[in-house]
């Protein structure tokens, strides 16, 4: 096999030394079936051990290895190196502050996740139950897709609203909120919808759809957010028309036993 070479243009940044990020070029031999991550790991092991990047599972499920490759957010352990030509630019995810090299600050993301209350909120009388719930396959399918998010944050790096609205909860967090609202086992719809339609919530999304384009797991956060908008409109309308009735989400999922508020 003829040995192939590629040049990786990698962003480097050490806050103790550099004012702003710079790039460094590495020309390395590559193998035909390498992913972008393999090249980075080769550099780290053989060329420059001072390079820092996050990775673990190398099977596209832990979500650590997201980076901007040639300007597009990619899961580097899944993205084949052969998709690119001689020069491959690897930069930290856009829209995030950078801690070092390819490592971004993700605490902001973690806070956003928590804000949508991503846990089952049980109806009060159920709190001490045992055994399992019943849930039909169809009911499972109402939210399954939205539960596939690996928190890789590629969608945040792609979304123009994230770049411009610092309070925006962002695609993955909003899709996660919608996921719980759609789950028949959850009874926190009213509570959660108030968060979802608040400042930085679903209505900040302008449906750029780029989140869904880059999502490596087919979560389709853009779809989730628009559906959540619709839920909120119907929720709101119903309460407006019949103020005293219990609000019901349109897909029979997000219901609550609490009387409508707001």
């Amino acid at each position, binding site marked *: 096999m003829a040995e192939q070479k590629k040049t990786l243009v990698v962003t480097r940044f*050490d806050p103790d030394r550099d004012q702003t990020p710079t790039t460094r070029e590495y020309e390395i031999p590559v193998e035909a079936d390498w992913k972008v991550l393999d090249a980075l790991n080769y550099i780290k092991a053989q060329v420059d051990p001072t390079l*820092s990047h996050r990775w673990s599972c190398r*099977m596209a499920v*832990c979500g650590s290895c997201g980076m901007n490759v040639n300007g597009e957010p990619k899961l580097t352990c899944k993205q084949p190196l052969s998709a690119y030509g001689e020069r491959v630019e690897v930069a930290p995810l856009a829209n995030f502050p950078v801690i070092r090299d390819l490592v971004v600050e993700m605490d902001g993301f973690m806070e956003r996740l928590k804000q949508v209350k991503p846990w*089952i909120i049980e109806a009060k009388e159920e709190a001490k139950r045992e055994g399992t*719930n019943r*849930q*039909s396959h169809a009911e499972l399918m109402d939210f399954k897709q939205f539960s596939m998010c*690996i928190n890789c944050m590629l969608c945040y790096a792609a979304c123009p609203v994230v770049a411009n609205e610092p309070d925006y909860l962002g695609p993955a967090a909003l899709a996660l909120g919608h996921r719980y609202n759609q789950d028949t086992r959850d009874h926190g719809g009213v509570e959660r919808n108030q968060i979802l339609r608040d400042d930085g919530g679903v209505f900040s999304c302008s449906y750029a759809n780029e989140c869904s384009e880059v999502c490596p797991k087919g979560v389709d956060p853009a779809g989730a957010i628009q559906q959540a908008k619709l839920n909120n409109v119907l929720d709101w309308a119903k309460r407006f028309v019949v103020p005293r009735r219990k609000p019901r989400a349109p897909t029979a999922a997000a219901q609550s036993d609490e009387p409508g508020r707001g």
Partner: protein
Amino acid sequence: MGYSFEACRDAVRAGDAGMDVQRHDIVIVGGGCAGLRAAIAVLHQNPAASVALVSKVYPMRSHTVSAEGGAAAVARDDDSIEMHGYDTVKGSDFLGDQDVIQYFVEQAPAELAQLERWGCPFSRNEDGSVATRAFGGMTTKRTWYATDKIGFHMLHALFQTSMQYENIVRLDEHFVTKLLVDGGRCGGVVALDLRSGEMKAVLGRAVILCTGGAGKIWPFTTNGNIKTGDGMALAYREGAPLKDMEFVQYHPTGLPGTGILITEATRGEGGYLLNTEGERFLLTRDYGVGAKAELGPRDMISRAIMLEVRAGRGISVPGKIGEYAHLDLRHLGEEIIDGRLPFVRELARSYAGVDPVREPIPVRPVLHYMMGGVDVDIEGRTCIEGLYAAGETACVSLNGANRLGSNSLTECLVFGARAGVHAVGFAREGGAGDAAEPQLLEQCSAEAARIEALRGSKRGDETLAGLREALNLTMEEGTGVYREQSAMARTVSAVAELRKRYQNLHLLDSSRVFNTELTEALELGNLIEVAETVAVAAKARKESRGAHACEDFPTRDDQNFLHHSLVHRTPEGPPRFDTKAVTLGTWEPEERKY
């Protein structure tokens, strides 16, 4: 300086150490399935407790995320607690402790039901109940699944559930480098904050280690980059013995090159293993699995594949070293594959360039799981007071010599919870008094100095990559699917040699912030430490049992070896080997035939 039981999580500057000191009731190291379950259990037991959850990666990155097949617990009418118990005992080749197994199978259904109520999106039967699938070594369908991403869904369900507890204080991306033990009493940990490069003392009245396995000891593994046996090494260094370390599980079906796992559920759903002649060798030849064929236990199937390869019936894959078997799913059809094994299809396509709907997947045995670990009792207690362990990092002796697939996630839940409950009880009673804080802080300063000295240190000319490769090679040679006394002896001395070479590391990165060269160096140190115990224990077991297949002693020897092995660290010199009795009970050892 004592501290109250009430949540006390202010960070205080400890005078001399110049180090951040945090005080909690319980310190949990590891945010995988076991760690998260333990954290929630602590707070269910005592909502006022303060828990520090220290993890070197954000919890949802833990390697639990990669588990595919499912988690076992009795669910069907045609099943029973006894049957699950017997399967597990037999799977363990009678090296599992039967009191532990009894407790485990009894608790399993409630633990998984709990997880269902926490929102884990399990796959469903027609009637809306949780669906179960067949798994290797299990008599009936008792593996609860969520298509083929159970670990991912469990981990995210647990993590998201844990977010509602304000008393869980997460220290994400904090690498624990040392346990603080004084006078046989564990009082916390020291952690390297990856972000700032600074050391923090995290004190607690009890510490629970949930740091996962050590697959990275071997070159070809299903394990992720973070599985470096840190917890085992931490406990081992403080004097806790490691138990049954020779038993490492090879999973029969890993992808060429990467070792990425193709779940056993492929066989549970009806997939075949074929040799180069297209023959279902598990059925046609005698490999001890009987009519179970592809649903036999992992140790036997891995050996069968190796024997097929040896007999010249292996399949070679262009550009990949070694020979393989074929995993054939074509007869299942696209609907079943997409409906129940979508991730397998995604993985095979992305990482092997094969679409299982149309072609068989080349697979070979790959290192997967450590049956051994920190020796703990049924409460998760180690021999160090206040130190607990649970999950893959612990060895509660559920799995004995061979783990049944889908038992380990449930193990993380059952024993993670039990350790949590016991630890918080222990902390409330104050145990045998708290460890003396000044002594602990002194240890912190010493540890900080050690880390500081290691960062970017240029002591010799050994590189990380070089040492790692040498370790991988010798461990593969000595502790593969089949083992030989002479090779094991070579490995024992090679690892001891590596321990010395490790002192001559040449590191290049002296920076403070997110220095991954430093963490890799620390991890390599842990890997070597743990690898040595594996080699020593393997060499000492002169029989074949479960996953330990010794060619010089091809049969099981209950007379001399129906015992656990313990490896103790000695300050200088080679590890000290010891044994411990197996707890029998209902089931007497018998020949293991399927």
